[in-house]
């Protein structure tokens, strides 16, 4: 719910800084109608820190929309706005914590309210681990500005200088000399009438004085979650709501040829059956019923004929065969990256040479809350309640599907039952919009079945790496090449899909003197999408395992070889525009920390036990992980201990949330490489649910996961993604150390781990 709908605002508000194209954000102060104080931060969509994935187009410069991040009523009720979608990454708690810290209020004194999609709030997205880096500084300044105003109001009231006043952290201002004290609520109305202070007059706290940031704070929705209160997309219940399911062609891109709805229409509770067709959504038939179950049950009564189309010829086996054919011939020029002279360097005498091929499969996101969206179409306007990671794109996709202007669409953000990148794609919002248009005036909740969810995902791309590398006698990696066979952006293009490409600066580029990277894109019709730490979460497996192979070939310790490769601490600027700088010192720092905390280099482990290490820089975070495993001679794997070391800057915002992200990334990473795959047969996903696409269970999850944050003097960055990429290679490297089995194909449960 948007606060502006509850409380009319007295306008015109004071304008501190005019909106100009060069400004990224500005503040506005408004008085509340019933007295009190509201401070808005107008955040631009543009995001200078954006690294990956590519940002959506910047928010249009519309009229100022009063997005009240801070609201204080005369009664002392302090409300902070949670602007971003919450799907388990913890932003509904951590972002308001930043404001509360500088506002100097106790956490128990604030109420957090979830925002709707609102152009004034900047980019509202759960994407790219970017919430912390884009909000940390602006939110500190926002909170500090509000505190400065409240202090100024107290100074005016008591006729003293602001410098004589303090805020002890409980939403009061104190004048110690005269023992006077006023609450923020008492000062709010006066503060709202003051001019906004100059930037220089707003003093941020010394981080040593933080009372809230860095502590373990429980999620703001915890009480609602443990009592089953409505929060999620599927929890939305509107008056007279109906429920819908869509039956889609199991083959990607298939189109409806004919349908006979009679039997389905006669099924109890079914209200309507109709084909849906609109720009941006797949061909399908909708069933609308009084309950979800009634809609689901009528599915099998539909008589449908599909034109399966071109994608029916695609298969996982076919892609692998195509990769092998590609490897058998010289890759097409030009190389993505070419440093030095790989061919000559690789052939030089006195080197240890290794060649290996690595593959990984398509993956599903498998959000536990199936895709869904509730929509109401009425009088040419659409209102949706959507568990989306990218609500603006959801609105735009719905607008495109209906041919409506985006302004005619209101998007309410629900809590999200797991994102992981799936809900950056808003097909479910567009579908719900199209279904709702057929049922004007009636709210309709579109619910995907588990099989729909598994079979119509936007999958993490499979990948095929053919690697060659050479190490010299001193343990230096002197040559590295990768012929990466990956996926094109469709059938009729040579362009590599942005979701499946190596980067020009990809590791170990910039670190190895003779480096040669080629990409061969395969044409295909499989829907691909971002999956937690896109690219890195897949590619790191091949890169960090192959690095391990080089270490073992050269009889070097895997940590020592990695540190030698990283070399002296230095910041390496990117070759690619907009890409982040890579700091080898920060990378080496977490490698050392993970090694030290794991007891790396101590007494050797007995056969059947082993440690493996891997690292990755992704989404502005540096992570290194050590796995310690036991494999019985019969091949049974136990993960004894996982040590995570991460450098995401100088300040952890919410330690509980941060540790939870780390522990979850470890489990997710294990799940993704141990047991999961989507196989394509005849242009469709074979898997239909948790029986054939399992999630790691509690019994298999490691009991010991230790997280160590290395606080370096760098801006705070996000944690949703950076920790997952090194998980699969660290596990595979540990298994190698324990058993001698080198795992080069995922999922790794296809490898026989028995040893004797």
């Amino acid at each position, binding site marked *: 719910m948007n606060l502006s709908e509850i409380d009319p605002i007295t306008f015109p508000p004071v304008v501190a800084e005019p909106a100009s194209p060069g400004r990224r954000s500005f503040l506005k102060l408004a008085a509340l109608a019933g007295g009190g104080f509201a401070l808005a931060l107008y955040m631009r969509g543009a995001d200078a820190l954006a690294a990956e994935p590519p940002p959506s187009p910047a928010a249009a410069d519309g009229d100022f929309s009063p997005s009240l991040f801070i609201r204080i009523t005369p009664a002392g009720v302090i409300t902070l706005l949670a602007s971003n979608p919450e*799907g388990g990454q913890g932003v509904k708690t951590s972002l308001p914590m930043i404001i509360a810290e500088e506002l100097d209020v106790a956490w128990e004194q604030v109420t957090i309210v979830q925002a709707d999609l609102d152009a004034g709030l900047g980019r509202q997205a759960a994407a790219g681990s970017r919430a912390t880096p884009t909000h940390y500084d602006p939110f500190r300044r926002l909170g500090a500005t509000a505190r400065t105003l409240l202090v100024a109001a107290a100074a005016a009231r008591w006729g003293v200088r602001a410098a004589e006043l303090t805020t002890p952290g409980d939403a009061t201002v104190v004048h110690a000399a005269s023992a006077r004290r006023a609450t923020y609520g008492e000062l709010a109305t006066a503060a709202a009438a003051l001019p906004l202070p100059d930037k220089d007059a707003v003093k941020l706290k010394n981080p040593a004085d933080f009372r809230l940031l860095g502590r373990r704070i429980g999620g703001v929705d915890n009480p609602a979650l443990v*009592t089953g209160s409505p929060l999620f997309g599927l929890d939305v219940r509107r008056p007279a709501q109906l429920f819908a399911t869509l039956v889609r062609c199991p083959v990607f891109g298939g189109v409806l040829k004919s349908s006979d709805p009679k039997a389905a229409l006669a099924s109890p509770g079914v209200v309507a059956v109709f084909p849906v067709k609109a720009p941006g959504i797949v061909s399908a038939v909708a069933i609308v019923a009084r309950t979800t179950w009634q809609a689901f049950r009528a599915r099998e009564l539909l008589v449908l004929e599909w034109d399966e189309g071109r994608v029916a010829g695609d298969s996982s086996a076919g892609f692998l065969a195509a990769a092998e054919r590609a490897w058998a011939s010289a890759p097409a020029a030009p190389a993505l990256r070419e440093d030095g002279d790989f061919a000559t360097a690789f052939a030089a005498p006195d080197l240890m040479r290794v060649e290996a091929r690595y593959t990984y499969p398509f993956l599903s996101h498998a959000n*536990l809350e199936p895709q869904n969206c509730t929509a109401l179409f009425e009088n040419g306007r659409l209102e949706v309640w959507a568990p989306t990671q990218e609500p603006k794109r959801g609105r735009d996709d719905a607008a495109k599907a209906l041919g409506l202007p985006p302004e005619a669409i209101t998007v309410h953000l629900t809590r*999200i039952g797991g994102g992981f990148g799936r809900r950056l794609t808003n097909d479910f919002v567009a579908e719900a919009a199209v279904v709702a248009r057929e049922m004007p005036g009636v709210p309709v909740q579109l619910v995907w079945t588990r099989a729909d969810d598994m079979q119509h995902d936007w999958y993490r791309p499979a990948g095929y790496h053919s690697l060659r590398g050479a190490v010299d006698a001193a343990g230096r990696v002197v040559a590295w090449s990768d012929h990466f066979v990956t996926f094109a952006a469709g059938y009729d293009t040579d362009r590599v899909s942005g979701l499946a490409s190596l980067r020009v600066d990809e590791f170990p580029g910039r670190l190895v003197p003779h480096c040669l990277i080629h990409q061969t894109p395969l044409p295909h019709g499989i829907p691909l999408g971002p999956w937690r730490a896109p690219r890195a979460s897949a590619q790191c497996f091949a890169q960090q395992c192959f690095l391990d192979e080089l270490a073992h070939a050269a009889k070097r310790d895997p940590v020592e070889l990695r540190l030698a490769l990283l070399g002296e601490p230095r910041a390496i600027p990117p070759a690619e525009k907009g890409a982040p700088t890579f700091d080898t010192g920060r990378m080496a720092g977490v490698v050392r920390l993970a090694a030290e905390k794991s007891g790396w280099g101590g007494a050797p482990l007995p056969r059947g036990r082993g440690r493996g290490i891997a690292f990755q820089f992704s989404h502005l975070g540096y992570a290194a992980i050590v796995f310690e495993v036991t494999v019985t001679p019969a091949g049974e794997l136990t993960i004894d201990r996982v040590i995570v070391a991460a450098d995401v800057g100088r300040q952890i915002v919410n330690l509980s949330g941060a540790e939870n992200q780390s522990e979850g990334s470890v489990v997710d990473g294990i799940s993704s490489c141990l047991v999961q795959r989507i196989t394509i047969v005849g242009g469709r996903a074979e898997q239909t649910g*948790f029986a054939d696409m399992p999630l790691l269970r509690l019994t298999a999850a490691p009991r010991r996961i230790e997280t160590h944050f290395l606080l370096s003097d760098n801006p705070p960055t996000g944690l949703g993604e950076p920790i997952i990429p090194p998980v699969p290679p660290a596990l595979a490297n540990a298994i190698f150390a324990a058993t001698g089995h080198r795992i080069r194909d995922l999922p790794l449960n296809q490898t026989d781990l028995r040893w004797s």
Partner: protein
Amino acid sequence: MSTTLRVNGRAHLLADLDPSTPLLWALRDHLGLVGTKYGCGQGLCGACTVHLGGVPVRSCVLPVGAVGDQAVTTIEGLAAADGRLTPLQKSWCDNDVAQCGYCQAGQLMSATALLARTPRPSDADIDTAMTGNLCRCGTYKRIRLAIHAAAQATTTP
């Protein structure tokens, strides 16, 4: 035909409810109790776990016709009438278990039943009771911790 369901201490008369309807959908779409979650519809993920006569069951594969007059307890029925949380619910908050939170109602129902039978569960007891509840976010370490902490809080004099 009509069915009477006893849910969280109240009897609900549901007219025109097909007895083959899974209990999950009767709770969610007929009674508006949306705390019990739909995850897979196949009894494989545990998100829909409720208690039937105190025993955890998967409501997505349990036809209402099989419920009879047995008492159904859902996540909405755990806390006291005055809103006071159970020690386990409190432990779940204190240990900040959830990430996305979608599986947590089912986790709590399974864990509540475990503590009712086994007030001081071992890790092996937790394994047995909780292995059928999937968490896509991977909060298993905290689930284990929160169960142990609640057990300690309620059994330590």
